[in-house]
């Protein structure tokens, strides 16, 4: 018997139920992080009533897990009104914030509103490094204070740390800081192009050689490997033959009402100011196309001998190489490094083999005999490990 969360994910993938929604309610921000992919100007974000209308539609569609993010969510003057409305609709609520505007009073209000988890960006254990990345003096002190306020309220807090040249040497400080604060941490190796396609942030992406200390750190990797312990039987089902859950049971909504499969897949399936969520989610050509993508049929990558080490993301493939179905350099580089570290001799991705032999990415289209999704993808689909069945016994 697998866990309830596994079964819930399985059922939502099978029926394309939008179990998870990531809703950026503003792109405005009080920080100016050097690696950020957003345009912080307000180009007409949805009003309070529009956002509430979207929440009504998500509720009707069956969404359970709702993440409010941005931009900085606390810059919306109606933020607590939106939270209260989301609570009335019975969502499981999570927030992503920089925490700068969270004081003791706001932390208590979040607790009272039943927010389950708050993720705060922390870039280093050194204030000067963190503040240089956010370009907001004093932000480190305020963000750390926010974590403590949340903990005092008994809220789940977590710190997220995108890795770049400015802070790669500090990753262990972040791990230690998380332990000191008593919170979970996420070291994020993903730096993406801006949503408008500007690739400037990619200059801040560390190469795999520079990431070796993290990739080989036993503490960090012990933490990551735990999520891959169980492999439920349902993973043999065709519904798991997908790159990831985006567009299958997860969606992303921009402050302007665009619906996409994921924050890293900036291809709008429709706009909520013109169409209903139901029509977009079940009827859009873009999402139906994404759902037709199967890991076992992806050209090139499905034939790759080191695919189990790969964290290929269709959104990043689209942004970096212009094709959600294709390979991209970053995924291959990290997969080869991971394979090497796992003891594979001379690992070379299928894409690199093809390129080295003079072929092109478009020339190969081979179906793989092995249709199962990678372990990495599976672990990404699992967001809550503990689950309990509640049964009403009737004789």
């Amino acid at each position, binding site marked *: 018997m697998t866990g309830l969360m596994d079964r819930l994910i399985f*059922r939502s993938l099978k029926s394309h139920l939008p*179990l998870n929604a990531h809703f950026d309610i503003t792109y405005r921000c009080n920080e100016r992080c050097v690696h950020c992919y957003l345009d912080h100007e307000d180009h007409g974000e949805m009003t309070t009533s529009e956002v509430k209308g979207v929440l009504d539609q998500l509720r009707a569609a069956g969404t*359970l897990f709702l993440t409010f993010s941005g931009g900085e969510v606390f810059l919306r003057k109606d933020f607590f009104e939106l939270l209260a409305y989301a609570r009335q609709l*019975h969502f499981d609520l999570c927030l992503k914030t920089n925490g700068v505007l969270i004081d003791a009073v706001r932390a208590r209000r979040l607790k009272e509103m039943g927010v389950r988890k708050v993720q705060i960006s922390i870039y280093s254990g050194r204030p000067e490094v963190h503040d240089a990345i956010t370009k907001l003096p004093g932000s480190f002190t305020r963000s750390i204070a926010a974590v403590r306020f949340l903990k005092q309220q008994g809220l789940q807090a977590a710190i997220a740390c995108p890795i770049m040249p400015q802070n790669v040497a500090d990753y262990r400080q972040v791990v230690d800081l998380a332990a000191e604060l008593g919170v979970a941490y996420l070291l994020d190796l993903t730096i993406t192009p801006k949503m408008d396609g500007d690739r400037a942030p990619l200059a801040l992406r560390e190469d795999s050689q520079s990431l070796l200390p993290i990739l080989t750190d036993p503490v960090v990797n012990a933490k990551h490997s735990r999520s891959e312990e169980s492999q439920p039987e349902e993973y043999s089902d065709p519904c798991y033959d997908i790159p990831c859950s985006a567009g299958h049971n997860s969606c992303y909504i921009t402050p302007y009402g665009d619906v996409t499969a994921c924050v890293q897949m900036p291809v709008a399936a429709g706009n909520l100011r013109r169409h209903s969520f139901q029509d977009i989610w079940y009827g859009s050509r873009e999402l139906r196309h994404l759902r037709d993508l199967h890991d076992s049929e992806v050209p090139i990558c499905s034939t790759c001998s080191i695919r189990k080490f790969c964290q290929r993301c269709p959104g990043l493939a689209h942004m970096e190489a212009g094709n959600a179905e294709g390979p991209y350099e970053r995924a291959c580089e990290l997969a080869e490094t991971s394979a090497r570290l796992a003891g594979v001799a001379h690992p070379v991705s299928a894409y690199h083999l093809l390129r080295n032999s003079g072929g092109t990415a478009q020339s190969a289209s081979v179906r793989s005999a092995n249709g199962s999704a990678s372990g990495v993808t599976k672990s990404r689909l699992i967001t809550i490990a*503990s689950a*309990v069945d509640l049964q*009403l016994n*009737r*004789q």
Partner: protein
Amino acid sequence: MDETRFACNPLAAWTEINGNIVLVSPEDSVLHELNPTASFIWKHAAGELTAAEVARLLTSEFEVAPEVARADAEEFLALLAQKRLLLQQPASEAVR
């Protein structure tokens, strides 16, 4: 438990999936799934309810003896109250 009134915990997150109610308990973030009968009760318990009212719901919908329905109702309320998915209402507010 006779006339004790219970109400859904307003901080509980829940949705309906394939006819069953799935809940996240606010106290410990544990995921729960109600079986079809319990889901039926949850969906009909928009306000407050007592064991007698739950039993009436069960006997009106299912072929079940009143005493069995009552026992199941009490078990249901006790279990969900224990998990803080239902909250016992103060006597002064026990007016429907």
